[in-house]
């Protein structure tokens, strides 16, 4: 037409939903669905195609094994599946509608939850990834019924120093967990000095996953000052005093100076770890949060011992006591804890977790159980920043929240997400292909492409919808995306 100035649109930068349609830039969509982006253009989204025939899945995680990867899934009947072993679930917890997952070494820890807290009366389980049934993590300590440990001075020469020595036993499980100290009745032996000690009736664990029994002992106690409280003294692992479960006798000989490895911390270990709503790691420790009875507590294991949770000092308490802890992640040597609207940080000072200093990072922005974006298949976090989704949007977080949020352009779309069901949403970051997937409680997916840049202007958003209800998502084998569905919408 004469005098008509054509408007050229040579870029398509996704959905813009912030205020009136009049405010939508020409290179954005006022509305869109099921598109994807290719350089400056757009196209159909990728198709959903069958991957594995596991029915009614409500949550899926990637499990990295020693030589392969599998998926750990929960269906809507409380059955937990390893996709490597499709015939039989490795765990069934009736009432589980969600679960926490954390791989550690070649095994993984699983905690059934209801999406907000761990299930009341349930526990954290360990699964070895070999198709055998999962079992409760940690383990029972020696009991008097297992064997009333007895100690007697040997007639043979030895190094046990004169004084009172208290002896006890600790079980070791097939995952390396050391139980609390037992049995209840501990022998206190008055050693004359220069003799060995014969131990008999070493407790035998009835649990098949117990492999060894460790003998621990106190250094010599002056009889004049002995209180009679057999658990009131410091215990040490006796060097070399390890027997296989089922062996009931052992002769030990040690100088006090050889007792170097403290075992007293085992006195207060959980024998059964409560179920959490979330699991992660920090400084080679397993951490879990939002147990049903203590939703503002983050439990922290002993370093290098993922099942060793001290009931007394292995915990962090969120600075405010109002809302359950929803997430926790390690980033640049700091442990960040989140509730739905707040973020706090703790730093490992090398002492018991209960002594770690904490500070508030933000008292207006937090996260949900599944909205701290994982990176690829590591179930870990990006080295430069992490993505955190909350009621206000998706933010870059590098120790503080970067403004504006990445969802700035689709503010109205974001605010329309149900806040009551926000805990069901899941955020995943594919940093190789530079894509973000946000699974919503409605079964839809919010998709973003950030090949043009990870900032609020360059990122390109679009909703995706399907004929099936998407419940969960994971990335495995570096770049394969897997969506879980529990059926037709």
């Amino acid at each position, binding site marked *: 037409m004469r005098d008509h100035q054509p408007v050229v649109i040579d870029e398509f930068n996704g959905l813009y939903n912030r205020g009136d349609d009049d405010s939508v830039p020409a290179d954005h969509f006022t509305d869109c669905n099921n*598109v994807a982006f290719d350089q400056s253009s757009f196209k159909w989204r990728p*198709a*959903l*195609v069958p991957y594995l025939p596991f029915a*009614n899945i409500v949550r899926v995680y990637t499990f990295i094994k020693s030589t392969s990867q599998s998926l750990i899934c929960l269906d809507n009947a409380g*059955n937990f599946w390893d996709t490597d072993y499709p015939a039989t679930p490795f765990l069934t917890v009736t009432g589980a509608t969600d679960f926490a997952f954390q791989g550690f070494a070649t095994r993984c820890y699983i905690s059934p939850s209801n999406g907000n807290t761990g299930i009341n009366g349930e526990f954290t389980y360990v699964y070895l990834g070999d198709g055998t049934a999962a079992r409760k993590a940690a383990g029972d300590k020696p009991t008097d019924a297992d064997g009333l440990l007895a100690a007697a001075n040997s007639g043979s020469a030895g190094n046990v120093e004169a004084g009172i020595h208290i002896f006890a036993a600790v079980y070791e499980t097939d995952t390396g967990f050391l139980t609390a100290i037992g049995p209840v009745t501990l022998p206190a032996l008055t050693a004359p000095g220069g003799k060995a000690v014969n131990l008999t009736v070493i407790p035998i664990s009835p649990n098949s996953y117990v492999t060894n029994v460790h003998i621990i002992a106190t250094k010599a106690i002056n009889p004049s000052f002995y209180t009679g409280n057999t658990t009131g003294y410091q215990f040490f692992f006796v060097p070399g005093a390890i027997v296989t479960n089922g062996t009931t006798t052992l002769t030990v000989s040690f100088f006090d100076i050889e007792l170097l490895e403290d075992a007293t911390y085992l006195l207060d270990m959980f024998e059964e770890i409560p179920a959490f709503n979330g699991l992660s790691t920090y400084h080679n420790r397993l951490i879990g949060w939002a147990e049903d009875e203590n939703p503002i507590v983050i439990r922290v294991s002993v370093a290098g011992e993922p099942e060793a949770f001290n009931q007394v000092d292995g915990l962090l308490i969120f600075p405010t006591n109002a809302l359950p802890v929803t997430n926790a992640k390690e980033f640049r040597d700091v442990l960040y804890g989140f509730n739905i609207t707040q973020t706090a940080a703790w730093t490992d000072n090398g002492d018991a977790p209960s002594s770690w200093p904490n500070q508030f990072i933000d008292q207006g922005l937090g996260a949900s159980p599944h909205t701290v974006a994982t990176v690829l298949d590591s179930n870990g976090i990006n080295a430069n920043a992490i993505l955190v989704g909350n009621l206000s949007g998706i933010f870059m977080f590098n120790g503080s929240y970067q403004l504006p949020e990445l969802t700035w352009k689709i503010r109205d779309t974001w605010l329309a997400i149900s806040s009551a069901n926000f805990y069901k949403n899941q955020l995943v970051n594919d940093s190789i292909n530079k894509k973000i997937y946000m699974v919503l409680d409605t079964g839809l997916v919010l998709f973003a492409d950030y090949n043009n840049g990870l900032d609020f202007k360059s990122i390109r958003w679009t909703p995706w919808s399907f004929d*099936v209800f998407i419940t969960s998502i994971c990335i495995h084998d570096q770049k394969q995306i897997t969506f879980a569905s529990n059926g037709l919408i």
Partner: protein
Amino acid sequence: MANIFLEDFDESQAAFDALWTPQTPPGKTLTPGGVVLSGNWNSCSGEVSYREFTSTPTINVNFVGCVKIAAGNGSEYIYIACPSITGGSPSFMVYVVNFTSAGRILFRMNNVLSAIQSSAGVVPTTGASFGLQVILERLSNFVVTYDFVVDNSSVWSGTFDWTAFAATITSTSDFYRVYLLSTYSGFTNTFGMDNLSVEDTLDYVDVEGVSYLSLVNGCSGAAANPVTVIRGSGLYTLDPTVRHDKLYRDTTTPTLIDHVKFPDPFATTSLIGDE
């Protein structure tokens, strides 16, 4: 010596049967996730499989339990608990059977030492899984006859007296429960076996004629909660080369696929022109 299935117990056989929770179908058939005893049994009820009945202390209890064990399994345990309840805190006698990788059977009572063990190789260490029956006849609190049967052949039997360890065992009472457990724990924290065959005779059960699951998982493991497959459910991946979605019709028949169009793909722009 009494046989709980042929003797009058609890006033009558019908009364005995009535105390079991019914499970269909009736009959002496082992089924995954549960077994039946004369038409009345429910395994994994409240996480344990048990039968409570009254008896006088002089009436003995005997039963047969069948399991299938993977050969060479040195870490599988069977716990057969005969607790007594005195109206207060329960205490119990637990017979523990386990195996070594050398094919020995270890047999204990209340875990008091590995009291007796068979010679090596009485149970297979390689090859296919084997069927094991444990036939116990408890003659008194501390005396039991035992007979271990592997694939229909008795491999180890005898009588053992644990009286020397009586200090750890409580006396009998009026009530007994017979449990078969997959894990050893306190009385209220036990998991029942998936499969139990309790016969009305002491003859050997033909293990080839029954089906059963591994003991390993117990109630909370191998017997999955039933799932009604919902159409469209499954695990999916993305394929950028395909222009329509492919959905499972039924994951039990994964080759049946529905091909559906993308729901409503579109993009709308808003152009503001001169008036």
